[in-house]
């Protein structure tokens, strides 16, 4: 059974030879391949090479077409600050007055910012793995892109002070997620992960998620699915217990849950939706391979006899972690065969 079959069978709640291992490994893969984070986020060949090299070393079941959280906002026009060994960040909000949103063009994924970098990396990854392993393309959700365009503090005030204007901003950012997501699919991605950290209940109340985020996720996942995306995957970090019951309505098929939500709780709250998680991301930096294997086995034990579970991290594995600390996930999965 190859990684592609293992993941898809698991998502269909069918038996697999072992539980699939899918930690969110992005920039952390660069160092082992001999590259800096700057190399990773700016070069399609280095991004792809890092992902493939890490998979050979770790033996996990997916590769990711993802550079960093600012690809979309940069393509729209935000100025980024680059560093050699850190992800680039938005230097300052692009718009102050929400009415300016009408002055922004939609970015062209084939031309603007580093969208072409990730698109080319996606094709390179797919060319190598073909249909033996899923290439997951990662896109930012509408609220997080809006948070970068306006600034998070500004977005939060505007949600309350000028809700109609925020709706228009989110219509625009939803379109950015859609067009970039479609381009990644055309480039060879098997599926999408939507990341939307700003939609976390740690940032906005459940009602804001339901009102502003849910209908947009629903549309995006439905359209991606219609265009051939194999799985609709949502990754929102933090304590998401009070929004997990909405995921089904948002057309989510796979949900990453953070360490603050236990595996049994996640299954209970998500119903039929598959679960990915939930090792504490900082463990991969501060802990030992032995302890990580123990934690992974605890997750596998908590999963019980349920199918539809992918062992992984509750959020991105930090870039300063060592790959030796990720390998125990595969070892645990092999030793804890279903």
């Amino acid at each position, binding site marked *: 059974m190859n990684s592609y079959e293992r993941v898809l069978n698991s998502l269909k709640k069918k038996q697999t030879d072992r539980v699939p291992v899918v930690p969110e490994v992005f920039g952390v893969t660069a160092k082992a391949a001999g590259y800096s984070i700057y190399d990773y986020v700016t070069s399609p060949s280095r991004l792809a090479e890092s992902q493939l090299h890490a998979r050979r070393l770790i033996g996990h079941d997916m590769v990711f077409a993802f550079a960093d959280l600012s690809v979309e906002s940069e393509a729209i026009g935000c100025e980024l600050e680059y560093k050699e060994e850190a992800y680039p960040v938005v230097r300052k909000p692009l718009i102050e007055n929400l009415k300016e949103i009408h002055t922004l063009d939609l970015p062209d994924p084939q031309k603007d910012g580093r969208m072409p970098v990730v698109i080319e990396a996606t094709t390179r990854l797919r060319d190598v793995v073909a249909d033996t392993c899923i290439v997951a393309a990662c896109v930012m959700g509408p609220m997080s892109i809006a948070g970068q365009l306006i600034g998070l503090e500004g977005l939060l005030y505007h949600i*309350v002070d000028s809700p109609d204007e925020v709706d228009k901003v989110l219509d625009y950012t939803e379109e950015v997620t859609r067009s970039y997501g479609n381009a990644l699919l055309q480039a060879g991605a098997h599926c999408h992960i939507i990341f939307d950290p700003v939609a976390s209940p740690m940032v906005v109340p459940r009602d804001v998620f339901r009102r502003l985020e849910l209908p947009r996720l629903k549309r995006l996942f439905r359209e991606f699915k219609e265009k051939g995306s194999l799985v609709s995957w949502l990754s929102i970090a933090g304590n998401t217990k009070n929004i997990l019951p909405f995921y089904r309505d948002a057309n989510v098929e796979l949900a990453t849950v953070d360490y603050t939500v236990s595996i049994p709780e996640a299954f209970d709250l998500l119903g039929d939706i598959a679960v990915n998680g939930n090792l504490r*991301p900082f463990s991969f930096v501060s802990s030992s391979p032995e302890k990580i294997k123990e934690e992974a086995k605890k997750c596998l034990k908590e999963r019980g006899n349920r199918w539809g579970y992918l062992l992984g991290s509750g959020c991105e594995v930090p870039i300063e972690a060592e790959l030796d600390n990720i390998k125990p996930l595969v070892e645990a999965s092999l030793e804890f065969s279903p």
Partner: protein
Amino acid sequence: MKKYPEIDELIQAIVQGEAHLSVNLAEALIAKGLTIESIIQDGLTAALQSLNAKCTNEEFNLLEIVLAGRAMMAVMDNVIIRYLPPARATESVPEKTLVLGTIEGDIHELGKHVVKMLLRSSGYRVIDIGKDIRPEEFVERAIQQDAGYIGVSSLLTTTIPSIRRIKELLNKAGRPDIKVIAGGGAIQQTSRDDLNVDFVAQSAFDILNYLKNLQDEG
């Protein structure tokens, strides 16, 4: 003591983040004869306690806290400050002074702003030294400002080596008495030992409680 039922409305308005209403209610209470001290004690402090209780349950979120912080600052800036001499609004003593910044390698400031609003509303002198700040600058500014505490904010675990240096530099400067408090984003997953600090805060209120406990002990 005369009862002012409107004080409960003020508490509610602040907790719900209604800045204009909070200012109007505070003004109305003063016009009715309530003292500034009572507005602070029975209004602002009570609102903080109510938020603090909310913060410990799972309904807590950044949006509500930012809005409540804005309402509280509106009452401070538009009402309280007019009736109090500046020296009384905040006390310029080490145990009430905190130098606050986002560590080098990180430019996120929202968490820092929330802490600033809450501490200022609680009578602390907060010196905000900005974002992407070197450990040396935290230490220099804390000594220069006669601060009892350094508050270091970060969303990213990549900044941990820089956070760890603050305590080392304080010890080198002969000022181990200055307490270092860290908080924000991924830092919440770490321990005091990971960061070489005196306290790792899980929320802005955690910092308030920590400072209050220190003062009660002292």
